Structure formats: C-alpha cells, structure tokens
C-alpha cells in the first residue's frame, strides 16, 4: 500500500474520496470551503449521492438529521469522525481496515 495513503489524515482521506467521487482533483479544498455549488460544485442531489459514496468508503451510515447540518468540508470531516467513533465496533479507521488513518 502507498505509504502516503497509509499515513494520511482523516481530512486528507475525505478530500481524496471527494476527488474520487467527482472524478477530478479536489486537493485545493480547504476546511472552510462550503459544500455547495460554490465549493466542490455540488448541488443538493450530488451532495446526497456523494454522501452515499462516502458511507461506502468509510463503512458508516449517516443519520438523516446530520446531513442537514453539513456546511463546510470540515463539518463533513467532523461528521465522519463522530459517526465512526459512535459505531459499536468503534471503527476508528473509518472503514479502511488496511489503512491507518490518523486523527488530525
């Protein structure tokens, strides 16, 4: 496995998966970038579909009420972290058994 992936932060990994979903490099995203058309170019349908993709990537299931609170990239990272740590199995690596995503 790529060492850079092994050691990536949760934030970096989230941005990597956003890039995969959008099929373009989104490494320029900042924590404060809004999650809408002005940010990654997401309208509401694409945001909801991306969240399905991220659920699969991180092995989590987001609460519907939490989705309404998403505002920025950082809020998304926070949601993934809180959802992962609230899992009964405490999936700290957030669905990537072979990778060690560090909390940052």
């Amino acid at each position, binding site marked *: 496995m790529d060492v850079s992936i092994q050691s990536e932060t949760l934030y970096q990994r989230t941005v990597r998966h956003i890039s995969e979903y959008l099929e373009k490099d989104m490494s320029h995203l900042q924590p404060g970038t809004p999650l809408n058309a002005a940010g990654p170019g997401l309208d*509401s*349908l*694409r945001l*909801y*579909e991306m969240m*399905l993709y991220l659920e699969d990537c991180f092995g989590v299931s987001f609460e519907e009420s939490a989705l309404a609170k998403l505002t920025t990239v950082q809020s998304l990272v926070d949601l993934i972290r809180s959802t992962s740590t609230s899992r009964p199995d405490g999936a700290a690596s957030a669905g990537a058994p072979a990778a060690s995503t560090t909390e940052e």
Partner: protein
Amino acid sequence: MCDRRRVVLTGIGVVSCLGATFGELASGLVEGKSGVRALTRFDATRFPGSLAAEVRDGSFAAAEGPYSYEIRRAGRFVQYAVAAAESAVADLGMPWRELPPDRAGVYLGVSTGGLDEMEAAVLRQEQRGPGKISPYQITSMLPNMAAGLIAMRLGCSGPHYTFNAACAGGTQAIGEAMHGIRAGRLVSALVCGADGVLTPIAYSSFGAMRMLAASADVESVPRPFDESSNGIVLGEGAAAFVLEDREHAEARGATIYAELLGYAATTGGARVALQSKDDVWRCMEATLEDARLRAAEVDAIYAQAAGIRQGDECELEAIEAAFPPDRMRPAILSIKGHIGHTFAASGPFNVAGAVAALRSGKLPKTRNLRAPLARFAHMNFGPDYRVPRPRNILINTYGFGGLNASLCVAGARPTLQS
C-alpha cells in the same frame, strides 16, 4: 407550387453497433456487416438467447457541457440519444442556436426508458436497503430524460416531446415532428429514437415470450423473412435527425439528405403483441395518402420484420395486399439482421438506412435471408432487387399494444418553381 410546407432532413447522427457515425452505419448495411455478437455486458448464458447487437463502450461520447454528469449518470438510452443528437446537430452546417429557439422542438421515441438503471436499483435496494438508492435514481430512468436533456443542452425554448411507444416510438417522433413543421409551428426539430435495454429482465422477459433467437451462431441470426427464422436478437442505440422546413433549409443553402413525404399511425393488432394484416395495410395506405404517392411509386420497403415468423408473415400479407403485383417493386428488406431489433430506435435506424440508399442508389440485402417464406417467395426480396435506383422508400414499424406507424422518405428532389 406546393400547397403545404415540405419537410427535409438536414442533419444525421447515429450511435449503433456498426459504429457511431452515419457513414459507418451506411457502409456496414450495404456491405452486409453484422453487429450481432455474444452479449458482453453480463452473463447471458442462463437465458434462452445470449446474443446481442451491442453498442461498444468507448465508441461514442456526449461532449462535455451542461448536464454532462446527469447524462453519464442516466440510463444508456439517454447517453446514446444525446450523442446521436449532437452528431446530427453538428451535421447541420450551422449552429443550432441560430435557429429560432421557440420554433425548434425535440421529439424523441423510446420504449422502456432506463430499464438498466431500474433493474440495478432494485437489486441494490434488496441487497443493501432503501437508504442506498441514489438521489439520481428517478432522473436516470424517466423516459423523457433524453428529450429533456437534449432540449436543455440545445437551449430550445419550444416544446420537447417523448413518445413512449414501444417499437414505434421513434417513428411516431419523426412523424409528429413533421406535422409540427408542416403546420408552421416549428421551423426545425431534432428527432430521435433511442433504446438501451440489454438487461437481464429484458432477456428473461423476451425469453418467456419465446421470442429470442436461440442460435449461438452469430453469423446466422436473426433471419427476417426466412423459412427458418427463429426469433429476434436484441439491439440498442440511437438514430437522430434534424428535420427542417424545406424553404428555410434552401434559404440557408443547407445540405438536404432526403425529404420526408408522409407519415401515419394507426391502432389495431391481432393480439397485444402481434400486429394484424388489416391494420398494417391501413397504416401503409394512410402513409402513402399523406405522402401523395401511389403504391406503384414506392421502390422499396424497410420492413419491421425482426425474424419472428408470425410477425414477418403478417407484414408480408399486408404488403401483398397494399401493393399491386409487380415484378420490380417494391423491394422488401429488413436491416435487423445487421443491427438487431433496436426497439424504439428501429424506425429511425430504418430512416437512416433509407437515406443512405436514396443517396447511394444501393439497397442493402436482408442479412441471413436464404430461403424466403414459401408463401411469399414471389415477392422482391433480392438479392438482386430489380429496382434501378430507389426514389421513394416506405418504412414500417409496429409496437406492442396495437401500435402501427409508417413513414415515407424520398430523395432530395428539387423544388418545383411556380
């Protein structure tokens, strides 16, 4: 001087199993090529038939632009339709936006829409739960999405219509657009027939009807009009045209591929999935009346014949009744041996084939036809058609649910001066 507006074809685009250009389709038909292969999209060996005339991935693409993601995300019929429509518009010889936007419409025929997306979603829901359904699910499978996305990308502010009419949908789309131009409501129309239903449910469903060609020999099926015909091969793709008011086309010096002379649609069938001789006959007669042609002036018929004996015989009985005995015309042919049954796109593909023949003078042979149905062996199936050069061609399509629709196209005849 003509007492009604004339309608001509000024742009052509196709996405087919023989290639994604009109030239590839035209040459493939005349050269007797076949797009029939063993299906690659999923394992079809458990079904009664496992052949298909597939559009090859990578052979076509819609241009990047508005709604690109929604197009990629939609059912295959949308992707085929948009790519074919863009080719037709590129062929127009002028930017689409220079046409009057409120008098340019989009008319599209499709059978089942995004059946591929629907099936995949049902499996996903059953395996992973309702929360895993994409928010694009509805828009990926609605039959009107192809016409809507084409119209929105083109910037049409006029109407867009979808003819959800089984195998007659594309023919109805072309015919109704012609009426819109004749009536003066439209100057031009993008018309298209599209389908992409090579899915497991399609194979099991047509298998249940005992309609699939069982042979694994890709070189010998389907066999329209043949004594040994044993069913259809499923096909897919899209064929699109720009229809234009002839005066408008001539004023701008457009290349005119052909003229659309007539159209009719009727209701009636022997059963829900079988046409009737009388209704087919009536539809052809009405089309000729609309085209202001006598039966003896029809040089060739691009038939519905798909390789199902009952249906092929019914159509031939109607042709026999509608056309006076003549050793030369009409030549009778089917292109389903080349491209399979493309459902709602079959009429538009026939129009594309007819336009190619009107321009080149060469009618394709019915592929895999070796021994014509004995009762009709006297009819003009070729391979030497005895028609010097086709000028007027009739196109037949029929759909489940008592749908009959025919078109008549002619070579680009000069305008008569008053």
